[in-house]
Structure formats: C-alpha cells, structure tokens
C-alpha cells in the first residue's frame, strides 16, 4: 500500500526538525485546532463586548492594555506548564530515552519541543494578535511600543521555556519513578516560577524598557518618577538602550541555560553542571556582567548617581 502524498513543505520541515513535525502531528488534530480557534475567538469577542460597555473609557486603548497584560500571562505560564508537563510525561514513560539515543543533535530536539509543544497556545495567541495591533493603531500608540512588546515577549518566552525544560529534566529523577502527585508538584512549581517571571516581565517593561516613552502616563494610566541605573548608567532614559540592555541580558541568560541544557539532556544521570561549567560559572566575564548588573540595579535603582 502506498503512503498518501504529503505536501513538500511537511517533508522539508521534518527533515530539518523531526521533533517539531512530531509535535505538530500529535497536537494539530482537527478537534484540538477547532477548540483553540474557538477559544481564541470567544475570548476576543467577550473582551470586545465587555470593554465596549464600559462608560467613559477609551475603548481601543483598553483593548490594547488588556492584551498587553494578558498575553504574557497566557504565553509564559501556560506555555511553561505545557513544556514541563510534556517533558515530565515523556521522561516518565521512557520515550525521551529513544530520542536521546538518536543521532540528532540535542538542540534540534529541544528546539522542536519549544516550538511544537505549545502549538495550540501559539495558534490561539496568533489569532488574537490582529485585534491587538488594530487596537494599538486605533488608540494612536507608538508603533515602537507594540514592536517592543512582542520583541520582549518573544525573548522572555525563549528564556522561560528554556528554563522550564531544564527544570523538568532535573526534577524528574528517572523513568517510571514519578507518581501523578510528583508530576503535579513539578507542574505547580513550574507555574509558580513562571508567574514570578511574568511579574518580573511587567516590572522590567514598565520601569526600564518603556519608561522613556513620552506619553507613558497616558498609555498606562499612571506615571513613574524613578529612574533605573545600571553601573550609574541611566538605562531607562533611552528607549533603544533599555531594549539593547534587556535583550542582551535575556540572551545571556538563555545562552547559559542552553549550555547546561544541551549537556544535561544527553546525560540525565550526570550532575547538572560539568566540572568545567561549575569552575567557569563564577569566573567568566559573561556571567559576571549579568550578575553584577542585576545586583547593581536594586542598589542604585531609586537614587541619582
């Protein structure tokens, strides 16, 4: 019997990253896709109807604000939960071992997980983006703010999902060892961790990344008096400097996690850090810049240089 022909792009996708294709095939079932589309549409409709009925409010600005506050919650918390849950399940079942034993590099497998596991969530979010963009334009918001939001959200998702993967690999001791209570415990910690990350995302975005916007008080409904300094440099004063600083730090954090992740994925029974990594960590200039930067912020955050 011949296999039905499939679209060439599916083959190309599968050749590039079999893990991603596997996740898409496992998740993009008609019923699940319809449910994701319906949930997204109903959510948007309800939001639109509720805000439309509020008196004396700028409708489009409120729609934009609702999305801006809501999307990180959904993406970071639900996405992290889905990744932790998937990896815990695979590790428990023993299927992750088969993937480990394949000759594909670990980065391909892990990237496939990040891109593929929250597929239905991505679908629901992508369907909400047009309304978010329309609201931004209708409310007359600067385009760089919307661009910044999605850029920071994307970089945060990559960091948060990478951390979630590492956490789930470390937390599950060995195949078959975990009960549902154990899995639930792991998921609860992951949700708590990502909730903290979402709060940090808002705090950072408001106080550093978007603080220099001229119409910040009108957009968000309140004003910020404080400045944010890093090594006596007022990073919140310049929109592009704040973003460069934020993205570099997120990239460094992600790179450090991936260094550990790539090794630990292949050798789950080894220590989390190799001897080399453990000895490099306190010494390397990369980590020094991150940690000194983070330590310097709260110290000098609320005073002038």
């Amino acid at each position, binding site marked *: 019997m011949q296999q039905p022909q499939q679209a060439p792009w599916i083959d190309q996708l599968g050749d590039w990253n079999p*893990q991603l294709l*596997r996740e898409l095939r496992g998740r993009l079932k008609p019923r699940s896709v319809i449910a994701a589309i319906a949930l997204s549409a109903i959510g948007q409709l309800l939001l639109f109807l509720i805000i439309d009925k509020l008196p004396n409010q700028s409708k489009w600005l409120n729609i934009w604000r609702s999305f801006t506050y809501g999307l990180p919650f959904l993406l970071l918390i639900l996405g992290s939960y889905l990744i932790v849950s998937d990896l815990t399940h695979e590790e428990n079942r023993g299927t992750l071992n*088969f993937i480990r034993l394949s*000759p594909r590099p670990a980065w391909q497998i892990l990237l496939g997980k990040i891109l593929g596991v929250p597929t239905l969530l991505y679908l629901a979010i992508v369907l909400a983006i047009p309304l978010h963009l329309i609201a931004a334009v209708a409310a007359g918001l600067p385009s760089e703010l919307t661009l910044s939001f999605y850029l920071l959200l994307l970089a945060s998702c990559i960091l948060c999902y990478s951390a979630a993967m590492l956490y789930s690999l470390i937390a599950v001791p060995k195949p078959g060892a975990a009960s549902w209570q154990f899995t639930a415990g792991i998921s609860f910690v992951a949700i708590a961790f990502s909730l903290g990350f979402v709060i940090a995302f808002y705090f950072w975005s408001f106080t550093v990344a978007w603080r220099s916007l001229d119409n910040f008080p009108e957009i968000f409904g309140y004003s910020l008096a404080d400045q944010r300094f890093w090594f006596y440099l007022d990073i919140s004063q310049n929109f592009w400097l704040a973003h460069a600083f934020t993205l570099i730090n997120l990239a460094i954090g992600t790179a450090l996690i991936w260094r550990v992740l790539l090794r630990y994925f292949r050798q789950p029974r*080894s220590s989390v850090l190799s001897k080399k990594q453990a000895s490099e960590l306190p010494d390397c200039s990369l980590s020094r810049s991150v940690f000194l930067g983070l330590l310097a912020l709260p110290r000098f955050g609320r005073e002038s240089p």
Partner: protein
Amino acid sequence: MLSTTGLTKQFDQTISVNQVNLQINAGEIYGLIGPNGAGKTTLIRMLAAAEEPTAGEIYISGQRLLPDQPNPGIQRQISFLPDDFPLYDDLNVVDYLDYFGRLYYLRQPELAQRINQVLELVSLENKRQSQISTLSRGMKQRLSLARTVIHRPVLLLLDEPVSGLDPIARVQYRETIKTLQTEGITILISSHILSDLEDFCTSIGIMELGRLVESSQLQALYQRDRRGQQIIIAALGEAAALQQVLQTMPLVTVCEILPSGNQVCIQFAGTNLEAANLLRDLITGGWQITEFSPVQASLEEIFLKLGYQQTS
C-alpha cells in the same frame, strides 16, 4: 562486531554488571539469559549507550563507544528496544515510523519505502493509519520492533521483546527476528523464554550475579553437554535382558527401564561416534532395535546446570 572489556556498572553499593568481557561476531543472534537481577538489562542499556558504565570499554564495529560524549556515528548503527517498549499514543502507525526514520536522517523517497518494508516485516501493513492507542499489545510490540529497525541498524539490542505475548504472537515475533538475521543484522536478545532462544540463537551468554558466566556458540554448548547425554533404546524382546547387556557396555554409566516397560534409558558418556558404535554393537549382537533416541538436553536444562555450577 561488538566487544566489551571489563564492563562494569555499580549503583551505589551494588555491582549490577561485573567485569563483563563480551564478544559477538557480525551476523550472530546472541541470546542473553539469566535470572532476574542478573544484570542483563543493565548490560544491554550500557551497550545501547542509555547507561554510562562505571568502568570498562565498549567497541562497536571497531569504534569505541565513548562515555560522556555524543556518539552520532555509532548511534546510527545501534538500535535498542527496552522491555517496556514505550510508544506515542497520540500518533498513528505511519507517523510514528516517519518520526523515527527522520530522527535517523532517512529522507523521502527512501523513508516511505522503508516504512512500507518494516510494516510488511512486522505484518502491520493494514494498520498503517491506525492510532497507536487502538493497537493490541502484540501489535504494539511489533510496531516497536519496526521502529528499532527502520534505520537499518547493524546491531539490534532487544531486552525481553516477547514478554507478555501469546504463543501465536511469539511465533510471529520469532519469524521476524529470523528474517532480520537474514538481512545481516547482528542481534543481542535477552529473554526468559529459553525455548524461543533455542530456536534462533547462534550463541548464548549466561549471566549470574552480574557476571557473564558462560558465553559460547549454542552448538558448542550442546556438544559439551552431550558428553553426558541420555539415550533411550528399545528392542524386540525383554527389556530386562537388554538392560543387562547394556550395563556391560563401556561408557554406559546408568541404565534403567522406563515406566513404559519396553524402553531402556541409559546415561552415555561417549561422543556421537561412540554412540553410533554402541548401536552397531547391539545390532551385530543380534538385538532387533526399534528405537535409539539420544535425548538432547534443552537450553533450559543446560542453563540450570551451567548457571548453578558457575555461581556455586
């Protein structure tokens, strides 16, 4: 094809595999037997690179399997099927095989051809679009085997692949393994069902308490055991008279009449040639022999004897 030197695995205070020196030639089906807890699964997992050895070295096709490092070249040559054969219930049969084929860098159109071949091999052609969750246990086990061979490995490591299968499914599984051998795949298989191993294995290794206490060609094992073989003899006339004659024969150590009353069972310490001479002597002595049946000890009997002897 596969060799190990001093392979050892220690978990905390327990030595699970102890100084195993294994040698398997290309094209062999090597049966690994031993009681529960003998270290078979740990040994197989180390050979599959799923477990890191505490000490010792593993060579596959002359290349050393390096611990603590990715071995993509060797990993393409090996395939491992654990005893619990986990599967993805959310995929259908074809998508599952497609996924594993791609993990091993198979591309179209070869991938589609190979999927058809392995489905035919395990007789699941009619289930290609079925959801894995709907398959029976035997089908799932066969699908797992199809997954392990999709990338044409040169070494197949099977840990208890027929456990839990009904007799018909076991026969089908045996035939599949024989077919794989004809394709030139070297197979290491562990099983508690020794009659199955007897049917297709070319060599046998016996593990006890983490040690490989016996490793040899199956025929050599039988030959060695045959030095103390039993022969059942029947002739026209009185069995008691035949017993008296046999007791005088050289190399006959024990001789007794079986409950049937017309058969005599002897314990014979000679070779096959000497057994043939015994038959000739009986016929030339005027006995009309109606049965002369050397009783071949089963692998199970040899295992019980050898395993016990070596450990003790």
